[in-house]
Each structure stands twice: as C-alpha cells, then as structure tokens.
C-alpha cells in the first residue's frame, strides 16, 4: 500500500473513530441520574427560539428566569429548595423543537412544566404535552394553543384572542357611530404564521361583528423581516381602514410606523398591535414615527416605576441594555407564576406528592397574584391572564392609557 493510501486509511479511521466517540459522548450526556428527584430541586425547563427571529425578545427571558430564581433562593421562599434552569435553543426550527421536547420529556425526573418560547412550537407540541401530562407554559398564547382549555396548557399573558377582543372593545368605545355614520374598519397587517394569526378565531371575528367593528378581508401579510409594507398599507387604506392591527414584533412595527409616516397615512390611520409589539426598542427602531402607536400590553414596562423590585433585580444582576427587551418583564411574571405555583403545590401535597396535576391545580388557584410585572389570575376555564392594559408611545415612552382591565373571554366554548 502506497504512502498516500496509508495516510487516507489512517485519516478515515481516525474520522470514523471520532464520530463513534462523539456519538458515545452524546449518549452519555443524555443520561441523567435520578439524584435530582431526591434533592429538593425546582427545575425550570425552557425551550424555544432563542437564536432565531424571536431571539431578541426571548433570550432576555432567560435572564429574568435566573434573576427571579436567585431572589427566591436568597429569601428562601420555598424552604430548602434549590433552583435550576435548563434551556435549549430550537433556533425557530420545528423539527429541532420536537427533538428538544422529547429530550426534556425523558429527563429524570420527568419535568412537570416546560416553558416554550415560540407560538408555532407551542401549537405544534400542544397535544404531545397533553399526552405526556407535562405543563406547557407558553410565551405565545394563540387561539390554537389556548383553546380548548387544556389541563396542562397555560399561557403567560392574556391570550391573543382575548387581546383582540379587548382591542375591539377599545375601538368600539372610541368610535362616534352617530357622527361617522358607519362602523369603524380595522385592517390586519401581520405575519402569516401561528403567532401572526394567533388572534384569529371564529369567536374573535364574531365578537368584532357584535361590537360593530368591520374587519377588512383579506388580511395583509408580510415576510419575516419586511423592509417595506407600503403596498399592504395602500391596499388597507383603499379599503377604508381606520385602524391597522398587527401581531408581530418591534422591528416590524417600526417598519410599519415609518411607512405610515412616509405615505402620510399616520394622521388618518391609527396603528395598534398585540402584546409583544410594545417593546422599548421601538424607540431606537422607529424614533418619532412610533408616536401614537398603541400596544396591548400584559406586563409592566421599563418606562415605569424605576423603584419596582424587578427593576432593582435587573440592576443588581448587572443586566445589559439588550435585556430590556419585552421578554424580560414577561418572564419575570412567568417565573414568579411558576415558582408561586410550586410553592402552593408543595404546601398542599409536599415534595413527594408533587406532580403536574398538583402544579396545574396550583396555577388555577392564582387569583390576582402579584407577579411583579403583571397581575395573574387563572381559573379552570381560563388558562391565560384575564387582565391586560393598553400602552401608547408618547414622547418616546410607553405610557399606559388604560388601567389593568379584564379582557373579554374569547374561549369558543
């Protein structure tokens, strides 16, 4: 055998051996002992899109998980408990999300609750969570995730349908039917995906009709990162839109605000968006063009009360400006909610009796629980927040324009 062939053989053998070793490492890494079950460990499993399109808002959520857990540990709020965060990034790829769910599911001890940070993933995995009797605690509360209400499915905000119902109330209340002589018209400009259309259901459309608000059909859609939505806005303007409503993130809101201003439509058409649109980064992204934009909001913002405890934790833990995204206050509430449910469940059934059923019941027992950035109420028939409020961009700040108000329940029942 020549030198070249020998070198090739050696190289290939080394490569194959390397692959075999890598597989062994992975398999051994996936093996977990049941030690955690004996210890009093509360593990928050967090999976979702942390590096993909939603990464900008979801990654700060992990900082919130850690800050709140640190606070609970420091103050021994659950006696003797240790806290752990286990996260995995799907990058927004559904097949990867599935694989992560199955990996988490077979962990020892079995997880009681997994936080899922992407609506599409929550929708796709919902039934697997129910089958596995693991609580799906979702960032994105779309109609498909929330309804029908499932014992193991909880939304960490008012559901998108409820938000839309709340918005219909607002539009209807602020419309002078007698003077205008017609119903207000709302055009939809959003993403054509689970999150973008998360508010859409028969119940929300029927509610809009009941409130005498006309929804312009067809909906207008834009790509994941649109740089121009002029065409869609012109179509909606031609259809007589008084309002435009979106369910996406701050960068897309910024594009829309800029295009509305550029087309001279910002005086004629009002613009509103669902929960995650009210991000402090809008100031940087859209500047003055964002003025007047209204967001349905389930959480406190960084433009309010700097002396609030969660703001102090943010500072104490040296969080970065990037962490000020919408996901931080959302997951302050999320982590508070989860830990409070653990506290109540442990109090009721003890560490030994702790399971997802007990945790689900504990979550349902939360009534106006002060989760620092949001009041949280769940009930057996409503597994998403019942209250939210509206905030508006005024002079470069998010200013609440309504108080915490109970949203209409859009559960199709």
């Amino acid at each position, binding site marked *: *055998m020549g030198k070249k062939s*020998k070198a*090739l*053989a*050696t190289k*290939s*053998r080394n*490569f*194959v051996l390397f*692959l075999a070793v*890598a*597989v062994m*490492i*992975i*398999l051994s*890494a*996936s093996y977990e002992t049941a030690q955690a079950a004996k210890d009093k460990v509360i593990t928050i499993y967090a999976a979702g899109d*942390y*590096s993909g399109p939603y*990464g900008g808002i979801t*990654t700060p959520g*992990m*900082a919130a998980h850690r800050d709140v857990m640190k606070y609970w540990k420091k103050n021994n709020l659950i006696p003797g408990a240790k806290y752990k965060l*286990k*996260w*995995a*990034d*799907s*990058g927004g*790829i*559904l*097949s*990867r999300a*599935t*694989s992560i769910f*199955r*990996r988490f599911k*077979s*962990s020892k001890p079995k997880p009681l609750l997994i936080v899922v940070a992407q609506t*599409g993933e929550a*929708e*796709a995995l*919902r*039934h*697997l969570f129910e*089958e596995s009797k693991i609580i799906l605690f979702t960032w994105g509360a*779309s109609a*498909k995730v929330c309804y029908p209400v499932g014992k193991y499915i909880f939304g960490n905000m008012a559901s998108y349908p409820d938000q839309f119902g709340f918005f219909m109330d607002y539009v209807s209340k602020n419309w002078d039917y007698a003077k205008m002589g017609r119903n207000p018209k709302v055009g939809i400009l959003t993403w*054509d*995906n*689970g999150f973008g*259309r*998360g508010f*859409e259901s028969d119940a929300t459309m029927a509610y809009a009709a009941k409130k005498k608000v006309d929804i312009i059909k067809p909906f207008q859609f834009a790509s994941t990162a649109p740089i121009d939505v002029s065409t869609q806005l012109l179509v909606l303007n031609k259809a007589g839109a008084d309002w435009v409503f979106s369910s996406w993130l701050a960068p897309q809101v910024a594009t829309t605000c800029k295009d509305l201003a550029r087309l001279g439509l910002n005086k004629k058409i009002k613009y509103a968006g669902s929960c995650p649109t009210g991000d402090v980064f809008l100031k940087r992204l859209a500047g003055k063009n964002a003025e007047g934009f209204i967001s349905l909001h389930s959480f406190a913002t960084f433009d309010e009360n700097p002396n609030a405890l969660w703001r102090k934790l943010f500072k104490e*833990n*040296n*969080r*970065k400006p*990037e*962490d000020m995204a919408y996901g931080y206050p959302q997951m302050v509430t999320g982590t508070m909610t989860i830990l409070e449910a653990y506290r109540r469940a442990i109090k009721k059934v003890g560490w030994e009796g702790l399971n997802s059923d007990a945790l689900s019941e504990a979550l349902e027992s939360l009534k106006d629980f002060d989760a620092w950035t949001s009041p949280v109420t769940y009930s057996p028939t409503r597994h998403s927040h019942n209250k939210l409020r509206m905030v508006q961009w005024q002079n470069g700040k998010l200013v609440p324009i309504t108080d915490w108000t109970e949203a209409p329940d859009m559960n199709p029942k």
Partner: protein
Amino acid sequence: MKLFGTFDVRYTQCTAIFRTLTHKITFVVFLLVLCFLPLIAGEQLLSLLTHIAITSITVLGLMILVGYAGQISLGQSAFMAVGAYASGLLITLCGFPFLLALPCAGLAGGLAGLIFGIPSLRLKGFYLAMATLAASFIIPWLIVWVRPDITGGVYPGLTVPPPVIFGFTFNTETSMFYLVITITLIMIYLAKNITRTRIGRAFVAIRDNDLAAEVLGINIFKYKLMAFFICSVYAGISGALWGHWQRALNPEHFTLMDSVWYLGMVVVGGLGSIMGAVFGAAFIRILEYFVTAVAPILEGWLPEGLAGGYAIYIFVGLGALTFGMSMILFLIFQPRGINHAWRVFLASLRLHPFSD
C-alpha cells in the same frame, strides 16, 4: 473491497447487497440490536433514532435525485408536506386505513414532484434549483389558502391520528420506533434495488453526461421525471410518517430551510451512495442534538459575570456557530462524505496489518 481470496466472477455477485456470509450475519445482528434496543434504551434515544429514520427516508429520495440522477431539488420539504397532509386527510376525512394511506401519501408526493420536475427537461443546476424552489412557496400557500376548511390552514392546522395497523395503535415512542424503522429499512432496500437496476444505471448515465446518455438511447425525458417522481415518493412517505409521529400539522413544519438542510445531508453523507443518505441524516440530526444539548451545559460551566452578562447570548449563538463550523470543517476534511470515510475505514480494517 472484500477479504483476500473473495472474488466476484459474475455481475450479480458484484452488485449483490449481501456479498459474503459476514455481511449476512452482520445484518442479522443489526436487526436483532434494533429489535431489542427499546428494552434498554430510553425514550430519548428512541425518539432520536425515529427522527433520524424519518429524515433518512427523505434524504434517500434526494440522494436518488441528486446523487444518482444528477438533478437538484429545493422542494423536498414541500413534497413532504404533500405526503403528510395527504395521509392525514385520507385517514381523517376518507377513513382510509394507515396501510393504504401511506402509499397514497407517497403517490401524492410523487405526483407533486412530477409537476415541479418538468422544468428539469429544459433547466440545469442553479436554474433548476430556482424552479424547484417554487415548490417551497407554492405548496404551503396552497395548503393555507385553497381549502383551509379541509387542511386547517395556519389556524387551527390539521390534527393527525396515530397510525393504526390491524387494531394496534402506534402511539408510544417505542411502537413508533418499530414502525418507522421497519418502513425505513424497506425504503432503503427499495432504494438500493433501484440503483442496481436499469433505471439506476440510466440515472447515473444522465448524471455523468446527459448528452452521451441520450446518444446511448436513454430517454432523458422519461428518466429525469422518473427521478423526480421517486424522490418525491420518498418525501411523501417520510412526510406521512412525520405527520403521524407529530400528530399535528401546519405548513410551518415544512420550510425551505429544511429542504436546504436535506441537500446538506446528501453532501455530508456522500453523493451517490444509499448508505450515505442514512449517514448524512444521522450526522446532522446527531449534531443538532449535540449542539442543543451541549451549549446550555457549557454556559452553565462559565463562572457568572465572566462574560459581562453576555454569556447567555454567546452560548445561544454558539449553537448556530457550531453547526456552521462543523459543516465547513466537514467539507474541508471529508469532502467525499461519511460514506467514503466509512468505506476506507472498513478497507483498512480488512487489510490490517498491511494498511498501516
């Protein structure tokens, strides 16, 4: 390469799947391992293997199209969608049994592939890639908008029941593992056979030089379309299995990025080898698993505050970085794919100690 003293004297021997007794014994041992694996392996490993198996079927189809027939497709994921929805709808709406719905799903995927394969008669390379790219947009659009009352559109999507065969419901990781592995083995066997027949040889001739192939009397029109059809049948069957494994579908399951990765798996596995498809699918899925599992562990090891509060951002990005770097390093050091490395490795074992 065979052991010293083993010679092929006929063409059939040369192309046989099992050429020696050792081959047969190894295969039987492999089957036994698969049979008994669920007894010792956890759900985590079984689900990883099921995922690899479903992906392998898709990549097998693409391997026939790209590796053997020399065509290209960026629509594989969309053809999976056709199969997934076809199977789901045939079972839920028409009451088809799973065993009938599965081949129908393959057929539906195949027909879709046939339509999008037509441009291959006039286009090559990047231009053909662009033409098949259209499938990745048109098919999801059709699913969402044409009859959302049937497909479920984006909202609420389509709920797919678990497979039922002769009254037995495959609704656990273990049962799905057995079902998917069995179908995968059948599909590998069929793929291997296709490449050994007149059709497979025609594909290779077209890949190597389509003009010369035509001069030899090979009907390019027929064989190119056939390659697209076979490729998409595999995608359809894989999509159906995916749907029954996931039990819920919406078009977000089948994205263009997935199609790109399937092509990546073909390259990583080794163009023009059936086992390369399986190796490629396994490599990427295991790497994916590795990256998602290890990045958080590494982040946990880093002392708090060392990265100035940016640790989480660094390690979240590490996943994508590792993935990209692995692919680049792979193409530099193993450009002929895993299958080639595996074959050289086996040869060096057989020739030991003379290989060192």
